[in-house]
């Protein structure tokens, strides 16, 4: 029985009604009000299982309300609101409706209490989100969207396989904590891992996110990956392998981010890297670590969206987001620059900004549990975050050498969205306790201790010093127009090349075989022709005399044999 109004229905209804509202301010207002109502609905929902009903013999739970699902529902709604303000002037009906549907399916997924509902919403996010890439309406975006869709739907198919196996084994479709071991749990784990952009499964993200529209990338950056973080936290908390996967994720994208030219792709690599911190937290699995993961997901949704918004605004005004083409925009887009720097300070974990109060929970938890090497790696990864997102993005967009571009400041709606997001980043950093209160476990953690502040400032200022020294000595790699090969090379170049060469090999062998048999056949026909053809010796008309002679010879032979 449905006893509560599920928030996802609100988004679906909003998306269905949106095309009938006059395009312009009324429609933008209607779209932005959906997540506001959703925040209210989620806030008012009592904890427990709601919206349960039976469908073809399966017990479905649309709303599992607990602290874990609620905080994700809230941040998803909040981020959807900010994203829609940022997209206020988008007049493309497809983008408007799909943004709402995408947010709605993601929110539906975090409240799903069983694997069937989870699967439906899981695929829903895949299908709704691809339109934000296709909305760019270029050939490149079409192909990129196709690749994205194949991977995303593929993740759903693996999830479906896992569900079926799980049902066979346990007879239950409940989505609860699992232990990795059976093929079923592995399949579900890998399905989550694809959306979470585990190393080597990550390529869809740096491929697709920078290909979306100005506003589409902001929306995309919020949901899919954080939904996967939620699913892993729900299903696989304390699974040790996640610690090592997360640690790899936290460093692997860093190097790419340093040499990448497209600033939206730099930010995508940094998003991938931030997910690594969260995955480590889930793997450690203690209360402190899980609190850290969720706090970090909350904070990173905001600062990552802020960074994507600021570079999106630059793209909107200049037509490019490439570091090699940008620079010196601080004079003409100073507010966008300030918001970008706030996002940069947050991702770098500067004291008084949001990253400082969320990431440190994960680092402390890994230290407390004795994962010293992982802690060292995460510290290294933090240096990476600072170098590529803390310095590189704002520096090459707004400072560095003057590009000669004199764009106007971003429009009011973009400034408003960035301003609100930036204020939240600072508010969380300055006073994290309301955020801590939303976390699933009690927080016994004080971020602002002398040791933490001083050591963090030492790290940050010496990262900066290293950047300045390398910049001044010319060692820092210049921004070049280029693409860098990543693992997707294997399926975009190597795979097709292998298929092409296998195809030509088969063609050659087939051709040779056919040729040889044809030649054989020709030879046979020619031999027959020679023997039995019109001029063939066997086709000649023989004189009767020679026949009689040969019969006499045969007869003689037979007689001889008889007498012997």
């Amino acid at each position, binding site marked *: 029985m449905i006893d509560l109004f599920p928030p996802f229905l609100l988004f679906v209804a909003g998306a269905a009604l949106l095309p009938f509202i006059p395009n312009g301010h009324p429609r933008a207002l209607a779209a932005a009000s959906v997540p506001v109502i959703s925040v209210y609905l989620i806030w008012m929902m009592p904890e427990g299982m709601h919206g349960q009903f039976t469908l073809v013999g399966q017990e479905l739970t649309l709303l599992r309300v607990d602290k874990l699902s609620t905080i994700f529902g809230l941040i998803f709604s909040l981020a959807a609101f900010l994203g829609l303000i940022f997209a206020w002037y988008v007049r493309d009906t497809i983008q408007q409706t799909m943004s709402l549907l995408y947010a709605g399916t993601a929110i539906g997924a975090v409240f799903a209490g069983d694997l069937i509902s989870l699967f439906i919403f899981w695929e829903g996010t895949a299908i709704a989100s691809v339109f934000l890439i296709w909305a760019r309406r270029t050939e490149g975006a079409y192909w990129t969207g196709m690749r994205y869709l194949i991977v995303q739907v593929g993740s759903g198919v693996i999830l479906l396989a896992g569900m079926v196996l799980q049902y066979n084994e346990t007879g239950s479709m409940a989505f609860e904590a699992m232990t990795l071991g059976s093929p079923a749990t592995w399949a579900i784990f890998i399905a989550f891992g694809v959306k979470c952009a585990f190393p080597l499964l990550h390529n869809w993200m740096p491929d697709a996110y920078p290909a979306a529209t*100005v506003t589409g990338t902001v929306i995309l950056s919020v949901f899919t990956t954080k939904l996967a973080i939620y699913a892993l936290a729900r299903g696989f908390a304390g699974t040790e392998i996640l610690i090592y996967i997360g640690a790899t994720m936290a460093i692997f994208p860093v190097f790419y981010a340093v040499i990448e030219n497209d600033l939206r792709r730099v930010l995508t690599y940094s998003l991938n890297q931030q997910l690594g911190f969260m995955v480590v937290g889930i793997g450690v699995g203690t209360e402190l670590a899980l609190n850290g993961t969720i706090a970090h997901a909350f904070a990173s949704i905001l600062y990552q969206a802020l960074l994507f918004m600021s570079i999106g605004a630059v793209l909107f005004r200049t037509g490019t987001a490439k570091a090699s083409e940008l620079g010196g925009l601080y004079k003409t887009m100073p507010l966008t620059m300030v918001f970008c720097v706030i996002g940069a300070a947050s991702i770098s974990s500067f004291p008084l900004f949001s990253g400082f109060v969320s990431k440190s929970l994960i680092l402390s938890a890994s*230290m407390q549990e004795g994962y010293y090497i992982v802690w060292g790696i995460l*510290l290294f990864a933090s240096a990476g975050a600072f170098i590529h997102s803390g310095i590189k993005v704002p520096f090459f967009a707004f400072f560095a050498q003057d590009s000669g571009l004199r764009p106007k400041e971003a429009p009011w709606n973009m400034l408003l969205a960035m301003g609100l997001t930036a204020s939240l980043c600072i508010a969380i950093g300055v006073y994290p306790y309301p955020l801590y209160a939303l976390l699933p476990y009690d927080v016994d953690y004080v971020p602002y201790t002398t040791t933490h502040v*001083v050591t963090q400032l*030492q790290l940050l200022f010496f990262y900066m010093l290293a950047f300045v020294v390398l910049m001044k000595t010319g060692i820092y790699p210049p921004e070049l127009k280029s693409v860098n090969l990543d693992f997707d090379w294997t399926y975009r170049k190597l795979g097709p090349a292998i298929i092409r060469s296998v195809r030509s090999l088969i063609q050659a062998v087939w051709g040779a075989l056919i040729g040889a048999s044809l030649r054989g056949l020709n030879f046979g026909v020619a031999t027959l022709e020679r023997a039995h053809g019109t001029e063939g010796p066997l086709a000649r008309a023989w004189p009767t005399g020679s026949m009689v002679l040969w019969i006499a010879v045969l007869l003689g032979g037979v007689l001889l044999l008889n007498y012997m």
Partner: protein
Amino acid sequence: MSTEMKTPETDPAKLPWLGRKLLWLDNMKNVDRIIYALFVLCAGLIAADFMYSKKSYLAIEDIPGFYAAYGFFMSAALIIFARVMRVFLKRDETYYSPKDVESEAYPEDQLSRETIND
């Protein structure tokens, strides 16, 4: 950082208020001042290590300036490693085209290119 690139003359009157205030960054001397300030801050932060009792888990954390050294060398190492990596991984922008947005122009109809002179 080279400043040879030709730039259109900018009329400060057309800049937003905050942009005008930030014009002092145009002066390279001021940029150098920021860098000196960074040196002073870094030195101060190392000195700060001697002024309080660190709450630490690992013995290595107690070495004064451990975080400073770790921060400096790790970021330097990662930048240099990335630069070496690029030698092997760099390809032309058109490498994946036309099945990639990398070498495409962003569609003009979705932009609002306005300059301060408009």
